C-alpha cells in the first residue's frame, strides 16, 4: 500500500485544504413546499434534505409531555448514499445519531412554550463523505428557523479531529480512516458557546483534546455565519419580490391619478 501524505510540506491536506479549513458549504432554506420548514445542504460531497413539521399534537396521547414539546429528530441515509448499498432499514448508527441530534436541538428550541406537541425533524442523507451528522444538524437548525419555531440560537455543528498527528477541522473520509484518527463531532449555540452535541472516538491526550476542541469552536462559528447568510438571503429575496409588487401597484395608482378615465373604462 502506498503511504498517504495527510499533510504535505505546504501544510495542505489530501483535498488541498488547510488544517483549519472547512469544506465548501452551501445551504438553501425553504426547498420543500409541503413541509412547514425545510433546508438543503451541500457540505463537501455530503448532501442532505431536512423537513420540519410542528409543533403539532403528539400522537399517541400517552407520549405527550404536559411541560414541553417533544423534539423528534429522525436521521436516515439513502441506500445509495454510501459506498456499499445500505439496507433501507434504520441501523443502530442512525438511531443513535437521531437521539443525540434531537437532544442538541431541544436545548435551542423553546420547547416549554409548546406542551403536548411534537416538533418533527426529518433528515435524509443522499451522498456522504464523513461529517453527515454535523451537516444534517446544521441544516436542521436552518429548517427550524425557516419553520418559524422559536429558538434561543441556531445550532452550528462541525467535526474536528486528528489524522497522522495533526489536529484538523472537518475530517474527510480518508482522514477519518487514518490509523491514529480521532473524530469529534461538535455542535454549539454560537452566541453563548454552549455545547449541545459532543461525541468522540479515538484516543487522545487532554492537551490535544483542548487544541481540537478550540479549533472545533472556530469551525462552528464559521458554520454559524454561513447559516445566517443562507437565512438572510431567503428574506432578502422575499423583500425584493415584495418591493417589486409594491412598485407595480404604485405605478398603476400613479397612472390612474394622472388619467382618471382609466377607472371608468374598467380594467385594461
Amino acid at each position, binding site marked *: 500500500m502506498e503511504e498517504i501524505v495527510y499533510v504535505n510540506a505546504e501544510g495542505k491536506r489530501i483535498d488541498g485544504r488547510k488544517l483549519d479549513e472547512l469544506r465548501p458549504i452551501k445551504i438553501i432554506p425553504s426547498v420543500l413546499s*409541503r*413541509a412547514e420548514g425545510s433546508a438543503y445542504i451541500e457540505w463537501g460531497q455530503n448532501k442532505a434534505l431536512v423537513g420540519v413539521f410542528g409543533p403539532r399534537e403528539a400522537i399517541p396521547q400517552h407520549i405527550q409531555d404536559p411541560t414541553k414539546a417533544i423534539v423528534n429528530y429522525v436521521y436516515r441515509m439513502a441506500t*445509495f448514499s*454510501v459506498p456499499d*448499498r445500505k439496507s*433501507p432499514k434504520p441501523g443502530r448508527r442512525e438511531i443513535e445519531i437521531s437521539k443525540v441530534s434531537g437532544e442538541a436541538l431541544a436545548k435551542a428550541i423553546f420547547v416549554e412554550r409548546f406542551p403536548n406537541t411534537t416538533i418533527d425533524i426529518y433528515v*435524509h442523507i*443522499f451522498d456522504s463523505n464523513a461529517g453527515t451528522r454535523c451537516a444534517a444538524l446544521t441544516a436542521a437548525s436552518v429548517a427550524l428557523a425557516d419553520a418559524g419555531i422559536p429558538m434561543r440560537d441556531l445550532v452550528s455543528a462541525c467535526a474536528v479531529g486528528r489524522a497522522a498527528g495533526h489536529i484538523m477541522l472537518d475530517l474527510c473520509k480518508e482522514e477519518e480512516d487514518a490509523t491514529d484518527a480521532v473524530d469529534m463531532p461538535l455542535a454549539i449555540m454560537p452566541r453563548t458557546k454552549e455545547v449541545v452535541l459532543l461525541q468522540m472516538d479515538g484516543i487522545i491526550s487532554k492537551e490535544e483534546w483542548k487544541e481540537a476542541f478550540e479549533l472545533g469552536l472556530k469551525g462552528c462559528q464559521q458554520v454559524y455565519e454561513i447559516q445566517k447568510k443562507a437565512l438572510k438571503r431567503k428574506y432578502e429575496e422575499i423583500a425584493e419580490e415584495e418591493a417589486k409588487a409594491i412598485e407595480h401597484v404604485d405605478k398603476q395608482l400613479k397612472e390612474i391619478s394622472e388619467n382618471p378615465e382609466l377607472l371608468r373604462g374598467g380594467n385594461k
Partner: protein
Amino acid sequence: MRDDILWELRSDKVKELIKVSQRLDGRGLFEYRPVQIETGFSKNAHGSCRIRLGETDVIVGVKMDIAEPYPDSPDEGSITVGAELMPMASPVFEPGPPDQNATELARVVDRCIRESKAIDFKKLSIVEGEKAWFVFIDIYIANDAGNLFDASSLAALGALLDTKIPKLEDDKIVKGEYSGKLELSKKPLLTTFAKINGKIVVDPATAEERAMDARLSIGTTEEALMSAMQKGGTGSFTQAEIEQCIELAFQKSDELRKFFKVG
C-alpha cells in the same frame, strides 16, 4: 392537519373548474408541469437523478450488486425497485416501513421498467447459476406535490441512464472503478391520468389528486408499446376513456423522453 382545510377548498375549486375544462394552476388538461432534471446527484450511487415535476421532488439512486441468480433463471440478473415516502415530503407521511402506497408506487415503476425489456437481464449474468448483477433502484420522495408515479419513473429512468457498472476483478467489485455503462435499449416511462368529474387530465397535482375519482398510469416505450398499467382510486374508467389515455400516454411520454438526450 393544519393545511387540510385549504386542500379541501382547493379540491372543491378543482372540481368546479374542470366543468369548464380548466385547471387550478392554469394548465391545459393534457399539459405536464415543468420538468427539471439533475443527473449524477449522488456520487456514491452508481447512477442517480433528482427530478422536479412542478413542486414534486424525487431522488432516485441506483446501486449494482452481485448476488446468486434466481433458480428459475440461472443465466439472468434482475432489478429491484424500492420506494420511500419520506415523512418530510408530506404532513401525512409517517416514518416506518413502506406502506401500501409506497409498495404500489415501487411495484408499478418496477413493472414499467422490467416488462419493457429495456434492461436485458441475460446481459447481467456473470457466472451462470452462481453470480449475476442485481440493479437496486431506490426511490426517495422528498416533496409530494402530486403525481409521484410519473416523477418516480422519470427519476428512475434518469438514474438508469446515468448508471455505470462497477469493474470486476476475480468476480468481485472494485470500488470506485467502472467497466462501462448499464445498457438501456429503450426509455420506459409512466404517464398518469386523473379522472375528475368525468374529465381526464394528465399529471395531477395534489389538489387534483384530492378531487379525482380514479387514476390511471400507463407505462410506454418509444416503440409505441405498453409495459405496464395500473388503475387506482375508487372510481372507474370506460373503455373509451382508457383508449383515449393510451393514445395520450404515447404522445406525452414521447415529449418527456426528449428531456433525456442520451441513448
